[in-house]
C-alpha cells in the first residue's frame, strides 16, 4: 500500500489529487486541491504553487507531505502560449476638418451652416454692424454660459444670422436655452482653439435617441457645402466617421481631410513541412487561418522583420527562449490563432478627443518546449519536499483517463481540455493509440479581446466579465439579470452600484463595471469573444484529432478543464456541435469533481495501469 499524488500544472491553475494505492493495485482517492499557478507553466517558479496545493490536499486527507511515497507531474505540456494584439487601421483628421463625438448633452437640435467666428469677434463685430453672412460661433471655456448667451442673443437681435456653435465647456444646453430660438450647439469640444476660423462649417445635433443624418451622408454634406461630384467623393471618410454619433461638426478647409488608412502591420510567414506561405496581417483573421490550414503540419512561424507583427512574434519567441533557456533559433512556433476584432482608438488629429472604431487583429501564439524543463521542475521539487517525483505521461492522454472516470462515459471518446493558454484535445478509441493535439488560444485570448473591444484599462476587469454573468441595478432594491430575471433585496444595495451594470459572482456579490457600455453591448462582446476563440478552437481541435479530419466521425465529446466551468461555453458548444450529430457534455471527474482535476486524476490512474502491466 502506498500514497501517491498527481499534480497538473496548468497555465493558470495547479491541481492535485491524492490517492492511496491498495494492495490489489486500485486507487482510492483521498483528496483534491486547486491553487493558482505561480510563474510560467513548466518553470521552477511553479514550485511555491505546487507546495501550497500539496499542503492543502495532504491536510484535508489528514496526512503530511512526508507520508507521500510518490509525486507524479504531468509531462510538460509541450506548449506555452502568449497573446498580443495590433490595430491595423487608423483614422486621421487633418486641418481639424471634423468634430464628431457624443457629448453627454449637446444643445438644441437641427443643422446650422455658416462661417466659423470666435465669440470675441462676434461681440466686437456687433459694434460695427456685424458679419453679413451666416456664422457658426466658437466659444472657449473662459466665456460663462450667461455671458456667451448674452453676446449671441445681442448678435441675433442685431440681425446677425447665427446658425449654431462649437463650445468647449459643457454648456450646450445652457446657452441654447437662453436664446430666443434654440440653435444646435456641439459642446465638450476639448481643443476648441484648433477649430479653424472664417471657414465654412456645418453643425448638426440629432434629437435624443437619434444619430446625425445629414453629416453622416456624403450627399448631405455635398448639399450643405454645394460640392461637385468629384469633391463629394472625398467626403466619404468624413461621413463614415460620423455614423452613429449624436452631434457633429464638419468644417470645409482648403486641404482638410479625414483619412481612414491601413497601418502596414507586416506579414506572417508560415513554414510548414511541405511548403512555406506568407500572408499580410491586414488581410484579417480569416485569410491568416486559411493560409495556416494550407501549410499544416506547421514547423515554425516568422513575422516580417521591422514590422509590428514581426516584433510581436519575436517577443513571444524571446520570452520563451528566456524561460526555457534554449537558444532563440531552437524555439519553434507550433500554432497560431488569429482573431479579428474592433477596438476603439483615439482619432489622430481630433479636436474633441474623439474615438473611432478600428480593426485590429489578435494573435495567440504557441511555442514548443521540451521534456528537459519539466525534469528540472521535478528534480527541484523532489529536493524541496524530500519525496520521489516522476513525470507521468502526456497531459492530453492523462486528461482522457481522468475524464473516463465520469459516470456514464465510455470509449470511443474525444475530450476538449481548455484552460487559460491552450486548447488541447485527445481521442481515445478501443485498441487504438490516443491522438492528441495542442492549439494556441484559450481563456487569456478571450480576456484580451474583451479588454480591447470594450476599451477597458485593466486586464482583471475583462477577466471578471469573462467569468461572471451580468445584471443591471434597476433600483437600490432590485436587479435585473441578463436573462431578464428580477431579484429583490431586503436591504438597499451599496450606493456605488446605483444604476450600474454589474457582475454577479458565484457568491452573489455584485461587482460594478466602470464603463459607459450597456449590458447588451458587454454581453455581445463577451459571447462573440468566446465564440471567436473558444468555439472556433474547440472545432479546430476536433477536426485535428478526428480520424480523416471530419468531425462527424466523432460520437462522444467530453469537456474538461476550465472550459467546463464557464457558465455559458458548454451550452454554446453543445448548440454548435449538435449540428454535427455529436454528444457533448461536461465531464464529471470521479463522479464528484466536475470538469476539473482530470489530468491529476488521470496521472494516478495511468500509474496504476503501468504497475498492473509490469506485474
Amino acid at each position: 500500500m502506498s500514497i501517491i499524488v498527481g499534480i497538473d500544472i496548468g497555465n493558470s491553475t495547479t491541481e492535485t489529487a491524492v490517492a492511496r494505492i491498495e494492495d490489489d493495485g486500485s486507487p482510492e482517492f483521498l483528496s483534491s486541491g486547486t491553487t493558482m499557478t505561480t510563474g510560467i507553466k513548466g518553470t521552477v517558479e511553479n514550485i511555491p504553487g505546487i507546495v501550497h496545493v500539496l499542503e492543502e490536499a495532504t491536510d484535508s486527507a489528514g496526512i503530511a507531505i512526508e507520508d507521500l511515497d510518490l509525486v507524479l507531474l504531468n509531462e510538460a505540456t509541450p506548449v506555452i502560449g502568449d497573446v498580443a494584439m495590433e490595430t491595423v487601421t487608423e483614422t486621421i483628421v487633418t486641418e481639424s476638418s471634423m468634430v464628431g463625438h457624443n457629448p453627454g448633452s449637446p444643445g438644441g437640435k437641427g443643422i446650422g451652416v455658416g462661417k466659423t467666428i470666435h465669440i470675441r469677434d462676434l461681440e466686437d463685430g456687433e459694434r460695427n454692424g456685424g458679419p453679413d453672412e451666416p456664422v457658426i460661433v466658437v466659444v472657449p471655456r473662459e466665456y460663462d454660459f450667461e455671458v456667451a448667451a448674452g453676446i449671441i442673443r445681442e448678435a441675433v437681435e442685431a440681425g446677425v444670422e447665427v446658425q449654431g456653435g462649437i463650445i468647449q465647456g459643457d454648456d450646450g444646453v445652457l446657452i441654447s436655452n437662453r436664446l430666443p430660438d434654440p440653435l444646435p450647439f456641439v459642446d465638450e469640444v476639448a481643443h476648441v482653439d484648433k477649430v479653424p476660423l472664417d471657414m465654412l462649417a456645418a453643425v448638426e445635433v440629432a434629437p435624443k435617441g437619434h444619430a446625425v443624418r445629414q453629416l453622416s451622408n456624403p450627399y448631405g454634406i455635398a448639399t450643405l457645402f454645394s460640392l461637385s461630384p468629384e469633391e463629394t467623393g472625398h467626403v466619404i471618410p468624413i461621413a463614415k466617421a460620423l455614423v452613429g454619433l449624436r452631434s457633429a461638426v464638419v468644417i470645409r478647409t482648403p486641404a482638410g481631410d479625414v483619412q481612414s488608412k491601413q497601418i502596414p502591420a507586416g506579414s506572417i510567414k508560415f513554414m510548414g513541412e511541405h511548403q512555406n506561405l506568407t500572408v499580410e496581417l491586414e488581410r484579417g483573421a480569416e485569410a491568416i487561418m486559411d493560409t495556416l490550414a494550407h501549410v499544416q503540419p506547421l514547423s515554425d512561424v516568422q513575422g516580417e522583420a521591422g514590422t509590428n507583427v514581426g516584433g510581436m512574434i519575436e517577443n513571444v519567441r524571446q520570452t520563451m527562449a528566456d524561460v526555457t533557456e534554449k537558444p532563440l533559433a531552437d524555439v519553434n512556433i507550433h500554432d497560431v490563432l488569429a482573431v479579428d476584432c474592433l477596438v476603439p482608438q483615439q482619432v489622430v488629429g481630433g479636436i474633441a478627443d474623439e474615438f473611432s472604431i478600428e480593426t485590429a487583429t489578435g494573435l495567440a501564439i504557441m511555442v514548443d518546449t521540451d521534456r528537459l524543463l519539466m525534469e528540472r521542475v521535478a528534480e527541484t521539487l523532489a529536493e524541496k519536499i524530500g519525496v520521489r517525483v516522476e513525470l507521468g505521461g502526456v497531459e492530453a492522454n492523462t486528461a482522457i483517463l481522468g475524464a473516463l472516470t465520469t459516470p456514464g462515459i465510455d470509449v470511443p471518446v474525444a475530450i476538449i481540455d481548455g484552460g487559460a493558454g491552450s486548447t488541447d484535445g485527445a481521442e481515445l478509441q478501443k485498441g487504438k493509440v490516443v491522438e492528441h493535439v495542442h492549439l494556441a488560444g484559450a481563456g487569456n485570448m478571450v480576456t484580451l479581446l474583451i479588454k480591447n473591444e470594450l476599451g477597458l484599462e485593466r486586464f482583471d476587469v475583462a477577466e471578471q466579465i469573462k467569468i461572471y454573468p451580468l445584471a443591471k441595478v434597476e433600483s437600490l432594491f432590485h436587479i435585473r439579470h441578463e436573462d431578464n430575471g428580477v431579484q429583490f433585496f431586503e436591504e438597499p444595495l451599496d450606493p456605488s452600484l446605483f444604476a450600474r451594470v454589474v457582475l454577479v459572482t458565484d457568491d452573489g456579490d455584485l461587482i460594478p463595471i466602470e464603463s459607459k457600455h450597456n449590458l447588451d453591448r458587454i454581453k455581445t462582446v463577451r459571447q462573440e469573444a468566446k465564440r471567436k476563440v473558444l468555439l472556433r478552437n474547440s472545432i479546430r481541435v476536433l477536426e485535428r484529432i478526428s480520424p480523416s479530419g471530419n468531425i462527424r466521425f466523432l460520437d462522444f465529446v467530453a469537456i474538461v478543464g476550465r472550459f467546463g466551468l464557464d457558465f455559458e461555453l458548454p451550452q454554446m458548444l453543445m448548440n454548435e456541435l449538435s449540428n454535427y450529430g455529436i454528444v457533448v457534455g461536461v465531464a464529471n471527474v470521479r463522479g464528484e469533481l466536475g470538469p476539473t482535476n482530470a489530468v491529476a486524476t488521470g496521472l494516478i490512474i495511468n500509474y496504476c495501469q503501468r504497475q498492473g502491466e509490469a506485474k
Partner: protein
Amino acid sequence: MSENTATQVVQEMELKEVGEAKTGSSPDEVVIALSPAFGDQMHRQTLTKIPHAAILRELFAGIEEEEVKARVIRVWRSSDLAAIGFDAAKLSGSGISIAIQSRGTTLIHQRDLVPLAPMELFPQAPSIDLSTYRHIARNAAQYAKGDHPSPVPQVNDPMARPKWQAIASVFHIRETEFVKPDEKPVELEVNFKK
C-alpha cells in the same frame, strides 16, 4: 472681457419662502436642500469665501445642462448634512437630492439609502471649487435620469484638516444655532442679483 468668469456673474441672491415643501411627483427633478443658515441667514459665503449665490447658480446650471429640473428647499430641523440630504431625497420626485451646508460641505443623496450612506459625499469643503459644484449637480441630475456617472473627482488636501478644522467647527456650531427642530422644510424661490 472683464466679466467673463462664473464667479463674477452672481454675488448676491434673494431667497423667498413660499410655503411648506411638498413631496414632488415629477421624476425629472433634483431637490437642492439648504442648511438652516445657508444663503441669507449668516455669512452668505463658504469657508473659502465662495458666495452662496454663485454656488447655487452652478448647481442650477449643472442640473439644467442635463435637462433636469431643480427645486430648492430649506431644511430647518437639523444642521446635519446627512439628515438634510435624506429629508430632501424623500421629498424629491426622482429620489435624488443635493444637500449643502453654509461652510460648503455637500452631498448627493437618494431616498432608498440609509441616512448616513449617501450616493456621493464631499466632506472637504475648502477643496470644492465652483466647477466641482457644477460637476456635482451634473452627476445628481444624471442619477435622477437613471444614469451612472463616474463619481466627481475630489482633491484630497492633507493640510485641509489642520488648516480648517477649527474654523469649520465654529461655522457648524454657529449654523446649528439657526436650527428650528419643529419646523417643516420650506420651499424657496431664488432670485439672483447681478
